Structure formats: structure tokens, C-alpha cells
């Protein structure tokens, strides 16, 4: 192998804040060989994105500056380049893709034109030639009908296809290095597996070097050749993948590996141990043949009459007191709608929900009153779930006052207890959400849920927006609360590893229906449904010798094509809608 394509030496980035200088990247040195995939791992704020922005000199603010070190791209010193010279590097030699393809694609420009634009600008091809080249690239990144899809707009595609389009835009100028900043974080596991495999294919075909920024060690284990672990702007560890995973040198890497939820050891056995009791008791929550339909938005120009979409279609569920049940499924599978319907936050179309024997549809007023005082919800986005104008103390005090179970004089003490329960310092009483981290906000959100002294807590994707180590802390907190307060927990997540780790029982949803249900261990070890199997095999395992699946998934199309499903009518309806749209 020849010398490295990219060589970073002692790269230092600093920013002056309020008179003092803070170091964002502290003398980081890295090498990237041709055709190598380098994984940059770390929590948010560790400087992984900052390094990549420094490489192309697109630092987020003019005050942040590279103050030392060198960046050698094939022997040329990038730190000495001026803005014009850098423009020839960006895109042409270093391409970038980002976490959220929706906000990085121009919504009013055809997908193909966005790709052709770069080709015409950087390679000086004519309109027709550029179109041919763009169609070729679209085919390479897995668009099934590149010729036709060239003329589509970003909103016509799903998240996975948009990410493919982003990759196509990045590839349009034939770069030597591709920087992928959390490219799959916003995607479902099955789509994530497809995108990761696409990146590896491109590496094999084009000899591309890739810097993959991620917080998921499973992804790194599956795709990368070498790993760099960052924390607080410092490079803690750097080496070949197998060496780092098998024999981590730094304590932080060890804790990172341990907090990865797919780590096989724990979970299953511990959860099974405490399931068995009270199987004769009355279920706390009973859902019977629940259907929730939403009217389709927009005018039904081509369909004649509007067809409502069933977000939840005939779901039946029984949850015993003290049980922890996980609901998994991809986005759009109806998990959140189910949760909201159970709490009476979304009108039911048909079916029954009964909470402690009280029936929601028949005895709505009484059941709602019961739900409001004995069930609570924890939300996905911790910032959006808390009123930005209220301090944590005011928020909790209000819940306690409205619920009315705590005597006024006892409220301050009770707030203290709640903060202790969620392990938040009492200093947070006077803080507002804006000045808190995501994990701290989520703890405050859990404290609010606990304030009603609930029997049932529904947690809707409550760790999806958090870093891995924080995720692990919140999961631990739930496990702890569950045993201490005998809570019944309905835990909704798209992350199967977390559900396996925390829950006794799991329910798999697909397009509004339950396709599989059972004990966590049983379902994950021997899934009986094709969809569950596909979902499980798509989780990137931390063991590099368990590769991502090749055959189980439909290769380059969307997940709706998962073969052999019971939910036939739903799928055909989905297709009808697709037809109408195009």
C-alpha cells in the first residue's frame, strides 16, 4: 500500500470565549490510507465533527480557528490553502454526507440536477453529458430506476433513498475521500444496514477512503478498518479495529464498549429471572382489536374518494402489573400512535382500551380521569417535551398541585424526593431546559412522569435522541425505578438492542399490526416472523466477525418489500397510495 491519502499531524483548533481560549481539538494526529474506512467515535461534543469540518475548513464560526498542526492531502498542505484553493478541494477531493439528508438536499431542485450541478461545475461537462453521468451515479448508489428518478424531488423519497441521493451528490465529483457524519443515525436499522453496505461497496469499487463519524460502536465494528476514539477534543485511542475492540487501551474506550447495548452478556438472563410471578393477576392494561385511522392529507384528486390511513390496525395487547414490555418497529409502524391511543391522546376509530378494568371507549370520562392520574408518558425529544419557560422546580410543583394528591406544604419535599429518584442535583430546581443537557432534560421528564405516582409509564423512544453513554444511564435509571417502585413500563423503541436489554416481553409492530410477540429472549433468538428476523439481523453487532446480513434483506429497494407478510391488505393499500402520488 502506498502512503496515506490524508495525514493529519497535531491538528489543534481553538476558540476564544469570554476572554479565555478553549481548545476544541487538541493536537490530534491521524492517517487515512487509500481505501481505508476510519471510524471516528465519541460522544456529542467530543470534537469528531469538528475535525472533519477543519479538514475542509468549513468551521462553524469565524472565531474558531486552526491554530496549529498540519493537514496533508496527498502531500499538499491544506492549512496553507486560501478560500479559492479550498473550493477546488471541497467536493472534488473531499466529499461530505450528513446526518439529516432532508435538510441538506435542496427541496425545490430535482435530485438528478443536484448531482449534475456538481459534475458540470467541477468537471465542466455539458448538460447532456452531465445528465448521463448523474444517471450512472444514481444507479450506482442503488436507485432502481435512475433514468426516471432523475426528475424526482427530494420529498418524493423516503429517508433512506434521500441518504442515497446525498451520497450520490457527494460522489458526483469523484472524490478521493468521503466524510460521512452520522450518516445513518436518523434511519431505521434495516435501512441503516443497506446504507452501510452501500458505503462498503463504493469503497471496494472506487477505492474511496471514508471517514465515518458515529456514536454507534456496532457500526464501527461492522464497517471500519480502524477506529479513533475521541473525547473532549483529544484522541484517546487509535488503531486497527480488531485490536481496539478486543484489547482497548484506554479506560474510556472500555466504558464505551460496555455501554453498547448489543453487548451480549447481560440483559436476557437478568430480565427472564424476574418475569414469572402474578400470571393470574388481572392485566393492568388491555388493548383489544384497536384501530386508529387518520384521514389522508391533501385532496384525493385521483382516487375519487379519500382513503383513511390506518396507523394502528387491529392491535391486541395485554400488560400485567409490574411487567416491562417493549414495542419495536421501524418509523411509521404505528408504535407512537398506539401509545397515544392508549393514553387517550388520540381518538380511537374502533376497538377497546381498558386500564385497570375501566374501558376507555364506553366510560371515557372516568377512564380518562384514571389514566391522567395513574399513567404518564416520557417523550422522545427531551427539549421539546418540557415547557421552555418553566424552571424544573416550577414544572414539578405544578404537576403536584394539579394532581392534588400531595398536601401543599409537602410539595417542596416531594420535589426533592423526585429529583433524588431520577438522580438530578437539587441545583436543577431553578434551571430551565435550555441550560441543561439532553440527558438532564430527560431525567427531568422522567421526574415529571413519576410526579403523578403512576402505575404505568409509557416511554416513547425516550433515549433515541441521546448519546450512547447517556442512553445507558437512562436505561439503568429505568431498570432501577422499575424494581424500586414496582412500575409497569411500556417501552417503545426502534433500537432492538435496548429493548432486549431492558424488557421482559417484546411486541414487534409492522405497518400498524403486531407481527410477533413473546418473551424477549425467545423472540430475539428464534424469531418466527420474517420481518422480525430481518430487523434483528440488521443490527450492527459489536463483534466484527458477525457481519451484516447479505441475503435476508431486499437488496436495494425499500423495506416495504420484505417478503412473505401477513399484512397483505395494508401493503397493497400502501402501494395504491404510491401509485396515486406518482
Amino acid at each position, binding site marked *: 500500500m502506498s502512503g496515506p491519502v490524508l495525514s493529519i499531524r497535531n491538528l489543534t483548533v481553538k476558540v*476564544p*470565549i*469570554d*476572554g479565555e481560549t478553549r481548545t476544541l481539538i487538541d493536537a490530534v494526529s491521524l492517517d487515512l490510507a487509500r481505501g481505508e474506512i476510519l471510524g471516528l467515535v465519541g460522544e456529542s461534543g467530543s470534537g469528531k465533527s469538528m475535525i472533519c469540518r477543519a479538514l475542509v475548513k468549513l468551521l462553524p*464560526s*469565524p*472565531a474558531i480557528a486552526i491554530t496549529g498542526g498540519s493537514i496533508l492531502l496527498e502531500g499538499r498542505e491544506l492549512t496553507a490553502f486560501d478560500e479559492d484553493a479550498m473550493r477546488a478541494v471541497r467536493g472534488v477531493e473531499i466529499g461530505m454526507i450528513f446526518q439529516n439528508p432532508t435538510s441538506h438536499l435542496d427541496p425545490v431542485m430535482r435530485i438528478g440536477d443536484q448531482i449534475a450541478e456538481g459534475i458540470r461545475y467541477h468537471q465542466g461537462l455539458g448538460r447532456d453529458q452531465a445528465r448521463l453521468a448523474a444517471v450512472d451515479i444514481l444507479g450506482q448508489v442503488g436507485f432502481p430506476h435512475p433514468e426516471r428518478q432523475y426528475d424526482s424531488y427530494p420529498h418524493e423519497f423516503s429517508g433512506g433513498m434521500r441518504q442515497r441521493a446525498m451520497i450520490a451528490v457527494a460522489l458526483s465529483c469523484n472524490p478521493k475521500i468521503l466524510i460521512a457524519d452520522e450518516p445513518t443515525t436518523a434511519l431505521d436499522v434495516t435501512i441503516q444496514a443497506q446504507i452501510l453496505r452501500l458505503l462498503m461497496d463504493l469503497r471496494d469499487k472506487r477505492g474511496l477512503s471514508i471517514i465515518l463519524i458515529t456514536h454507534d460502536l456496532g457500526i464501527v465494528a461492522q464497517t471500519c478498518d480502524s477506529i479513533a476514539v475521541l473525547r473532549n477534543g483529544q484522541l484517546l485511542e487509535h488503531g486497527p479495529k480488531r485490536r481496539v475492540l478486543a484489547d482497548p487501551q484506554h479506560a474510556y474506550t472500555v466504558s464505551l464498549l460496555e455501554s453498547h447495548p448489543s453487548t451480549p452478556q447481560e440483559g436476557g438472563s437478568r430480565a427472564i429471572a424476574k418475569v414469572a410471578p402474578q400470571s393470574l393477576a388481572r392485566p393492568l392494561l388491555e388493548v383489544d382489536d384497536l384501530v386508529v385511522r387518520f384521514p389522508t392529507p391533501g385532496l384525493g384528486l385521483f382516487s375519487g374518494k379519500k382513503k383513511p390511513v390506518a396507523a394502528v390496525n387491529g392491535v391486541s395487547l395485554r400488560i400485567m402489573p409490574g411487567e416491562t414490555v417493549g414495542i419495536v418497529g421501524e418509523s411509521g409502524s404505528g408504535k407512537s400512535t398506539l401509545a*397515544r391511543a392508549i*393514553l387517550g*391522546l388520540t381518538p380511537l376509530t374502533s376497538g377497546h382500551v381498558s386500564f385497570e378494568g375501566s374501558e376507555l371507549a364506553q366510560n371515557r370520562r372516568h377512564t380518562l*380521569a384514571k*389514566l*391522567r*392520574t395513574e*399513567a*404518564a*408518558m416520557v*417523550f*422522545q*425529544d427531551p427539549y*421539546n*417535551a*418540557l*415547557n*421552555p*419557560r*418553566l424552571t424544573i422546580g416550577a414544572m414539578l410543583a*405544578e*404537576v403536584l398541585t*394539579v*394532581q392534588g394528591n400531595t398536601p401543599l406544604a409537602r410539595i417542596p419535599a416531594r420535589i426533592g424526593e423526585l429529583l433524588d429518584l431520577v438522580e438530578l442535583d437539587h441545583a436543577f430546581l431553578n434551571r430551565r431546559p435550555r441550560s441543561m443537557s439532553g440527558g438532564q432534560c430527560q431525567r427531568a*421528564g422522567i421526574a*415529571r412522569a413519576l410526579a*403523578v405516582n403512576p402505575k404505568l409509564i409509557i416511554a416513547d423512544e425516550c433515549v433515541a435522541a441521546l448519546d450512547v453513554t447517556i442512553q445507558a444511564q437512562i436505561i439503568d435509571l429505568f431498570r432501577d425505578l422499575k424494581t424500586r417502585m414496582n412500575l409497569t413500563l411500556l417501552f417503545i423503541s426502534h433500537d432492538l438492542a435496548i429493548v432486549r436489554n431492558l424488557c421482559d416481553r417484546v411486541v414487534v409492530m409492522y405497518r400498524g399490526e403486531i407481527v410477533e410477540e413473546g418473551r424477549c429472549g425467545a423472540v430475539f433468538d428464534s424469531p418466527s416472523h420474517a420481518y422480525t428476523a430481518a430487523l434483528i439481523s440488521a443490527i450492527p453487532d459489536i463483534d466484527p466477525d458477525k457481519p451484516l446480513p447479505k441475503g435476508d434483506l431486499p437488496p436495494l429497494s425499500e423495506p416495504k418489500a420484505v417478503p412473505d407478510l401477513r399484512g397483505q391488505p395494508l401493503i397493497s393499500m400502501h402501494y395504491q397510495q404510491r401509485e396515486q402520488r406518482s
Partner: protein
Amino acid sequence: MTSGATATRMNVPWSRFLGRHMTWTIGAGILGLFLAVALAAPLVAPYDPIYQDATVRLAMPSFAHPFGTDNFGRDILSRVIWGTRIDLQIAVIGVVFPFLIGTFIGTVAGFFGGIVDTVFMRLVDIILAFPFLVLMLSIIAILGPGLSSFYIAMALVGWVSYARLIRAQMLVLKSSDYAVAAVSLGFSRARIMFRHLLPNAVAGSIVFSMSDAVLVLLNGAAISYLGLGVQPPVAEWGVMVAEGQSFITSAWWITLFPGLSIIVLAFGFSLLGDGLGEWLGVNE
């Protein structure tokens, strides 16, 4: 968060305070000055604003009359000072009532949606369908000329912009997770509406009300100019501009000084509005 400029600035506390709150401080300063002048009008005004001195008609600005005199020999400076009282009152009352009405209606319409929303928004459409000034004039014509008629007309017509602003915010906020959380915690609708959603929705309207104050001020002047607002000989800037119009080529000071006062007061309001916007985080 912190820009480079902040970091390089001197570390003197007051300069940093000024730097962060410059617009807000200047705006509040200007308004404070006008307020002080209005309150102290009898003390600071050198002459009686409606006393006519036939010996000094149309006098140029001089030591005796710093802003000159008008065609009746009244002292312009004294009239501008006394006018401050009326004009501040117009700007404040002309904004407060539309603000309160519009905020309430917008909150209710946005939160409940459905038939409530439809009824109020069609009402807004009807009011907007008429030219603003024509509607104002007809209401004042029915009620009879005078300042109180002007305030009533303002309240009946001006609330629509606030209702629309607040309604749009409420539509976004009512689907936020904290609104859903509040429902799931058993909070009453009124509590969710006015304690949780409204404080988060109102910032944009507060900022808008500052620029609206300027428009109301000009409207008041226009209505007075048409003879339906403040009645002569009471000193009001709009009336003074109107009166001086026929002497604009020979005695420019009659229109210039009240006109300048309107501009400076308007400037103060809009600076305060910008500062409030920053402080309330409207742009975040």
C-alpha cells in the same frame, strides 16, 4: 453562541452590558425621555401651548422661541412638549386594546380549532377585506369625532393582526410534546392554553406591537389630519403637521419639529422592539 466580536471586546462590565443590550437600552432611553417630557410638560414648556401671541406670528426659531412659532403665534416647542402627552397616549392605548383582544381570540381560535377557529378567522377575513382607513373612518363617523372614538375603532379593527400571529404560533405549539404531556398529566384546557402555550407564543406579538405602536401613531396623526381625531386647538403632532402644511415653503419649522418628534419616537419604539425580540429569543 458567543461570537468573536464579544470575545475581543474590553472586559469592562458596563461596556459589555451596553454591547449586549445596545438596541434595547437606546430604545428604552428614548421612550423614557419622551415619557419624562410628557409628565413634566407644565414644568418644561416655556409657554401655554394654545396661547396666541399676534406679535410673533410665523417667527423663525430664535432664543425666545427655539422651535419658532406658527401662524397664530403659538410657540412650537411648547406645543410639541404638550403634544407628547397625547401622542404617547395614542401609541400606548391604541396598541394595548388590540393586543389584548387579538391575543385572546388568537389563543382560543388556535387552541380549539374547528368551528371556533373558522368563525373567528372568517371574521378576520371580513375585517381585512375592507381598506383599513376606510373602516376606521366609518366607525369614527358613526361614533362621532374624538380620541375615544379613535381608540374604540382601533380596538375593533387592529386586533386582527395579533389574532393571526398568535393563532399561527398556537397551531405549532399545541402539537408540541409539552402540550401533549400537559394533557396527559390531566391539566385543564385553560391552564394549558394560558399558562403553558401562551407565554411561549406571545413573544412575536410583543415585538410586533412595538412596530405597531409606530403605525398607530401615524394613524392617529392621519385621523387627526382628516379632522376626526384630536380637535384643534389641542396640540397633537399630527394636527400640527397638518396645520403647518400650507406654510411648508415659507415656515418649514411648523411641520419639521412635530414631524421629527414622530420619527424619533417611532425610532425608539422600533429599537425597543428589536431589543425585546432578542431578549425574548424570538429569532431562535
